[in-house]
């Protein structure tokens, strides 16, 4: 539970890390956009008339904002958990950056992300009890393989929801809210402060990534968001609450994997789950072999514009976040001894 007593500086530290991450992404992104365009680091936006070129990736900027905040926070608190969260995020960023530059096999990201989980174990950022809504379980040994699984799974889950303009950044902003509340209740001050740069850095970036995108986040950006989300959920004793908040993305990953039946990159799948009509609205594919995804299911009732699909995904994120808030209440009731 957060310690709000006078003198522990949580409010001041919170303002410093939030402002730093927000301002770094907000101010540096336009410069990054110009730089990427000058370098020719652009990709086509297939869902717009004329397929305009959009610079990619925004991952380095998001990471810059987060790392700057975490270093300041570490210098203020000297807590190694903050260093562990930061290193996990940095390793995941490197994995994503490699994937941004080269088309790698589908197994690369999940395997490489296991390395990103290592700092959490080495620096002992995890606890020994897993909060399971109705109580907690003492699992000192089992926690280690669990961490090695959580970071790749959450990283790839967030990566899989990066489907249309602004969706992944908006989705992360919405679903980080219940996670922050959960960390405030079941975690501690330092992990809560370490989680703030994810929210505020992503808010800073959202203005440029929302429809119509001025920059794409790329795998480096999505893996920064996903791995950091997983890391703060672990360090903040909020793993199950995090899973519940991410349910639309979990569902998307599950539907894709269970229909394709192997771990494969989206761009390597021949059949597309959606088709673009002449009016640039998207429609669900009628092909039996096309992967089943969240967007395809949203489009099952008829075509929609890109902006409308994003709006429906945000609705689902608000809904799953509400379920996460209810779960926090249940967990608080049981962990406080039913008082």
């Amino acid at each position, binding site marked *: 539970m957060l310690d709000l007593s006078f003198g522990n500086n949580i409010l001041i530290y919170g303002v410093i890390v939030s402002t730093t991450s927000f301002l770094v992404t907000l101010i540096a992104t336009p410069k990054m956009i110009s730089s990427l365009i000058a370098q020719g680091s652009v990709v086509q936006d297939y869902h717009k008339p004329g397929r305009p070129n959009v610079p990619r990736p925004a991952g380095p900027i998001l990471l810059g904002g987060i790392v700057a905040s975490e270093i300041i926070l570490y210098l203020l608190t000297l807590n190694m958990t903050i260093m562990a969260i930061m290193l996990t995020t940095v390793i995941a960023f490197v994995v994503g950056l490699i994937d941004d530059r080269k088309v790698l096999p589908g197994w690369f990201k999940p395997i490489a992300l296991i390395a990103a989980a290592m700092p959490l174990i080495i620096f002992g950022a995890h606890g020994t009890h897993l909060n399971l*809504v109705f109580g907690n379980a003492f699992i000192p040994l089992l926690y280690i393989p669990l961490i090695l699984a959580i970071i790749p799974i959450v990283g790839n889950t967030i990566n899989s929801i990066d489907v249309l303009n602004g969706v992944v950044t908006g989705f992360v902003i919405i679903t980080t809210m219940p996670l922050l509340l959960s960390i405030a209740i079941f975690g501690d001050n330092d992990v809560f402060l370490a989680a703030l740069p994810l929210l505020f850095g992503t808010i800073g970036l959202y203005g440029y990534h929302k429809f119509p995108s001025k920059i794409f986040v790329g795998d480096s950006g999505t893996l920064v968001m996903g791995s950091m989300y997983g890391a703060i959920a672990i360090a903040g004793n909020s793993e199950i609450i995090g899973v519940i908040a991410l349910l*639309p993305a979990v569902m998307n990953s*599950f539907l894709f994997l269970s229909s394709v039946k192997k771990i494969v990159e989206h761009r390597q799948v021949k059949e597309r789950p959606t088709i673009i009509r002449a009016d640039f609205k998207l429609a669900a594919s009628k092909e039996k072999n096309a992967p089943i995804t969240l967007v395809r299911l949203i489009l099952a009732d008829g075509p929609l514009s890109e902006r409308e699909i994003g709006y*429906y995904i945000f*609705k*689902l994120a608000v809904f*799953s976040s509400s379920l996460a808030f209810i*779960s926090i209440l249940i967990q608080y009731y049981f962990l406080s001894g039913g008082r």
Partner: protein
Amino acid sequence: MRVTGLLGFITAMWVMILAITAFLINFIAPIDFILFRNGLDRFVISLMQASIAIVIIVMLVWGLNKMKEIYMQKKLQL
């Protein structure tokens, strides 16, 4: 509403997660006391608990797959 079915799907997933966590807390966590009256080695108990948890997760995935098939048939006629 367009996403009503998806909201139902997400709610079903949430209920399944809550059911599993309740089962793990009430039956699997205290299994050494319930079945063996604290008579087994801690490592063996942990191994047993982990194995049961994995079986339950496999069952969850199987359940989700069944749910998905029903939903797909209704929505996409696949």
